[in-house]
């Protein structure tokens, strides 16, 4: 089945204090679809003043919102989930148009997962309780979690609605107000969501501003009117945001990407069965979302005695990927999100080849026909080489996996950890000891064991090393949006006796 480009208005607005508001300066930018480079719509090119207006609205709303009951907040989060679910196809289509990813993924992954995150945090905030300790016969220590106040959230373009749904629900569930800036490449699904849920929250609780990083992102990240900044992106911007936060003595959480190893031990080929089939797919998951995933399994490590046979199957499966019109449900891989990504990936092909990497498949752009000829398509690519090559060390953020072999467990661990990053990793083996010991030895925040690219709301996600800090998903996420009020209560009628 094939869909077509959804209809958009000519231009959209920021969502501030419960209303759609034009940018004060009256400037807009044109947002295009990477599928065919056609215009989607105009979005506000916000400036400091727009950001300040949103922050003022959020600050005005925070007292009342922070004092609402958990039951009330949970019911509103559930309402949002129901609204997205009732409009699942529309959200999927808008997301595909704006980001370029295949509709198969937005229908079955992005949007359903987004819905579940809203429901998960609605459930968490109801089920959770504070803690109390009787310190001695007369003294009670009571810990109450209080919201931080106003949170600034800057989200990326690779999973626009899903990343929004990772960040908004825990902040709102815990009683914070939010000013969120979507990536300028993908402002559409956040805008559609605000249109659908405009009346759900009290004015000022959720605010969305559009614009460019230096003009709108920086004022948000550096404002003294926010109490916390959450960011997903790259290291330099991460460092800048931490600098700004240090001026305001604000907490931050950072998710800054990775270069995730996906390790295949020789036992995966002990039998030609369903598990081997799953492992082959596990290797080919580098092409999921065109490789535009922070945890893209972009380094495939294969034990040397199965290398040739295993890679033969991986190459075959990679070559079977259908890359075509993203609106077609048969398409497995769509377009890269923007021209600069498209160019960057190709410049990595060049340096990879120059460093001696062998192209096992792909290694070039994919010129599609018709209107799609203007889109940004890269063939799924496997490069064979060694771990010191730059293509093995840098996040290409494209459908590119770099393949190398290892001798034994020690070498697998050494290669896996020889990276600046530590976000995700995959371990594939039928050996019960390796199943536990190898993941423990890998310095990464998430190790998938005999699976990959699963992102349930119930499992914490975040990085080691230069991949950042703080966790997302899971109920522990809520504490990143709260502070602890300790009430120390004395039931003793007698004085200390000091004075």
């Amino acid at each position, binding site marked *: 089945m094939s869909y077509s480009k959804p209809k958009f208005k000519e231009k959209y607005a920021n969502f501030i204090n419960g209303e759609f508001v034009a940018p004060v300066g009256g400037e807009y*930018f044109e947002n295009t679809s990477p599928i065919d480079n056609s215009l989607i719509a105009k979005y506000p*090119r916000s400036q400091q003043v727009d950001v300040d207006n949103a922050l003022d609205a959020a600050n005005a709303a925070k007292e009342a919102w922070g004092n609402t009951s958990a039951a009330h907040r949970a019911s509103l989060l559930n309402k949002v989930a129901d609204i997205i679910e009732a409009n699942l196809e529309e959200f999927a289509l808008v997301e595909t148009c704006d980001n370029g990813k295949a509709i198969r993924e937005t229908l079955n992954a992005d949007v359903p997962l987004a819905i579940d995150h809203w429901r998960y945090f609605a459930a968490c905030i109801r089920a959770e309780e504070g803690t109390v300790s009787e310190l001695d016969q007369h003294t009670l220590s009571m810990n109450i979690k209080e919201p931080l106040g106003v949170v600034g959230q800057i989200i*990326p*373009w*690779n999973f626009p609605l899903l990343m929004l749904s990772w960040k908004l629900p825990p902040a709102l569930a815990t009683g914070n107000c939010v000013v969120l800036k979507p*990536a*300028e*490449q993908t402002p559409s699904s956040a805008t559609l969501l605000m249109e659908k849920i405009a009346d759900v929250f009290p004015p000022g609780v959720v605010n969305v501003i559009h614009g*460019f*990083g*230096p*003009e709108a*992102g*920086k004022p948000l990240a550096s404002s003294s009117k926010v109490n916390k900044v959450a960011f*997903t*992106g*790259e*290291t*330099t*911007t*991460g*460092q*800048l945001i931490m*600098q700004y936060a240090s001026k305001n003595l604000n907490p931050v959480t950072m*998710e*800054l*990407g*990775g270069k995730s190893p996906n390790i295949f031990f020789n036992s995966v080929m002990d039998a030609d069965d369903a598990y081997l089939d799953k492992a082959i797919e596990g290797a080919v998951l580098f092409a999921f979302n065109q490789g*535009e995933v*922070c945890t893209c399994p972009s380094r495939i490590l294969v034990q040397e005695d199965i290398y040739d046979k295993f890679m033969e199957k991986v190459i075959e499966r990679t070559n079977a990927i259908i890359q075509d019109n993203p609106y077609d449900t048969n398409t497995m891989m769509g377009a890269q999100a*923007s*021209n*600069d*990504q498209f*160019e*960057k990936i190709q*410049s*990595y092909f*060049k*340096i990879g080849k*120059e*460093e001696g990497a062998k192209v096992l498949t792909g290694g070039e752009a994919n010129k599609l026909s018709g209107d799609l000829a203007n889109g940004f398509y890269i063939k799924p690519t496997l490069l064979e080489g060694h771990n*010191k090559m*730059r293509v093995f*060390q*840098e*996040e*290409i*953020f494209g459908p590119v996996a770099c393949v190398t072999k290892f001798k034994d467990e020690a070498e697998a661990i050494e290669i896996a950890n020889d990276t*600046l*990053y530590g976000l995700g990793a995959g371990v594939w083996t039928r050996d019960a000891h390796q199943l536990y010991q190898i993941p423990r030895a890998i310095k990464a925040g998430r190790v998938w064991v005999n699976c990959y690219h699963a992102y349930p709301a119930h499992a914490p996600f975040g990085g080691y090393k*230069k*991949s950042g800090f703080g966790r997302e998903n899971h109920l522990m996420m809520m504490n990143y949006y709260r502070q602890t009020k300790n009430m120390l209560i004395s039931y003793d009628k007698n004085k200390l006796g000091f004075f």
Partner: protein
Amino acid sequence: MTRVEITDKASEIVRQLKAKHGELIFHQSGGCCDGSSPMIFEKEDMYLDESDIHLGDVEGIPFYMNKDQYEYWKHTHLTIDITQGRGGSFSLEIPLGLRFIIHSRLLNEAEQSFFKSN
């Protein structure tokens, strides 16, 4: 000999940005999304110290990279170029609808021995 160069097209954008913002620096990013691209900022915007390697100047402005990242990059020569695009960072060229990108090549033998002895 240089470790980093810039194309004429990219130079022209740097000059435009300089006229608007004053003194600037480049910092090479790593990681997710818009990472692995050079970012351009006002000079005072980013705190730099000995953990940032100064690779050279292009169009009169210094180019830096974090030293951990540099360890993996030091055998390559970099050329800053500019392309159509819309990165999601705080880099100053983004409102122009442009993005700086890096083209890399291996250092040749002469360059390698030059940088070893200097």
